[in-house]
Structure formats: C-alpha cells, structure tokens
C-alpha cells in the first residue's frame, strides 16, 4: 500500500522529506537570522515562502 504517510513498510518518502526539509529550513533560518541585519519579520516571511515552495516540490515529486 502506498500513500503520502506510509509506503511498503516505511514512512512515505514525500512525508519523510517534508519532515527533514522542515527541520533543515528551521536551522537554516536561524543561521540567516543571525548573519543578516534584515528584520526578523522579513526573514520569517522569506523562510516561510522557501519552506512552502520546497514542500510543494516534495509533495509533487
């Protein structure tokens, strides 16, 4: 049985990918926040867009 969450005895790859990608986005966002003088809200908005785009790609794969 194959689905988004579960596939042949393991987590579905898109689901697994979204989890890993989300954590990496969070940590990358932290680095960007520390290294750039941009306002927090701008960074948050940019990271949200990047995260959403990545999730769309992962789900579409």
């Amino acid at each position, binding site marked *: 049985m194959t689905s988004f969450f579960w596939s042949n*005895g393991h*987590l579905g790859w898109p689901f697994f990918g979204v989890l890993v990608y989300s954590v990496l986005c*969070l*940590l990358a966002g*932290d680095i960007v926040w520390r290294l750039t003088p941009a306002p927090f809200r701008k960074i948050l908005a940019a990271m949200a867009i990047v995260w959403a785009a990545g999730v769309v790609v992962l789900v579409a794969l």
Partner: protein
Amino acid sequence: MTTFLVQVLVLVLLVVLVGIWALRFPYPAFWLRPFLPARKRWPEREIRDWLGNGRFHRGFLKFFNRDPERNPPSEPGLLAPADGLITSAEVRDGIRYLVIALSFWDMHVQRSPAAGKVVVIEPSGDEYMDGEGRNFSFLREKHCPVQTRVVIDTASHGRLAVRLITSVAARRIEVWPGVGDMLARGQRLGRILLGSTVVLEIPERFAICVQTGQRVWAGETLVTAGAPT
C-alpha cells in the same frame, strides 16, 4: 523494515538537533558557533550571564586570551596601547587622555606605545572609574587592583603613561615588565583580564592622528604622527 529504521534514526537525530537548538536559543547552538563572527558566536548577553555564574565557554576563554603577534609600523609616532574603540581624547592640564574602550571580543593584551623605560607602576588610583563613568571604589576592599598606571620615559615623546582600568566584571590586571625595565616599541606590556578600558596619557604638544569612534589595534595603529606642535 530497514528503511523504516533508518528513517526513524534520521528523525530522532533531527529531533535531538532541534531540541539542543531550542534549549540554547537565543544563543547559537554548538554546531553553529564555528560559522559565526565572534560577536555573534558569543553574544554579549551570554557573556554577561557567564560573568554572573562564572561558567565561561571554553572556546570564548581561548578566544579572549589570544595574543597575536603585531607588527609596529616603521613610521615614527606613538602606537595604540590596546585594541578597541577610541571614546575620548580630552586634554586636561597639558595631558591628553586617549581613552580606548575594549569590548569582550577585543584582544586584551596591551602593548607599549613607544620604546622607553618603565619608571613607575602604580597599581591603583584615587578614583576607581571605568570608561562608562561607573565608580568601583567598593572594589578597594578586595585583593584586586582595578586600575594600574604604567609610566614610561621615552626618548621620542617624553614621559607617557598607560592606564589599565578594569570594569566591574574584572578583578585582575597583569603588568609584565617591572620598574627600570626597558621596553621596545610595541612590546607586550600587560593584560587586563576581562577589563574594559585603557587610557594613554600623552603630552598635549603631540598632535594625535586618530579620532573618537575610530578602531585601533595595539602595537599597530599610530595615534600620533609627526613632530610635537
């Protein structure tokens, strides 16, 4: 099954990473520190916390205690005795007091501004003020001089003094040469352990070539140039 176990392992690893990150927040997690500049690697608030509990980050202490080689310029003139930011250059009674404020991230070894002979080392002053106008006279009761003034007799600039002043956080000043020792230009003079201010006292007739707000480096930045005016 193997795939599932690998996935779980990866997710557990990521959860641990996020957990450490969250526990450390807003300070950077250990894996992030190497990629950050010093001021971001050890934020001021975190350093002040360490001052309170005495548990300093080992990496910060190593960074703080660094003592790099310096190359004095060949041009004549007095050298800055410390790394830091010039905050004042007031003249009083014919003496210019060039105040250099050191931050937590500055190198804390002081250097001689000119070649000369150490004639006086005064381990304390009448006033116990730091560069920010705070009075630390209460520290007089402790075995910790909060101010040391090193007077140097130089052939080029007459009698100068370098005053090492600590802040509330600091307790120790080290002055390495003794009275009567000869100093080379840019030679290591001492160290303030977690101190904050170094004052160079120069006769007024020497024009300075630095200004308030300028960054200077011990043993490398010229603070005076040319002949006395």
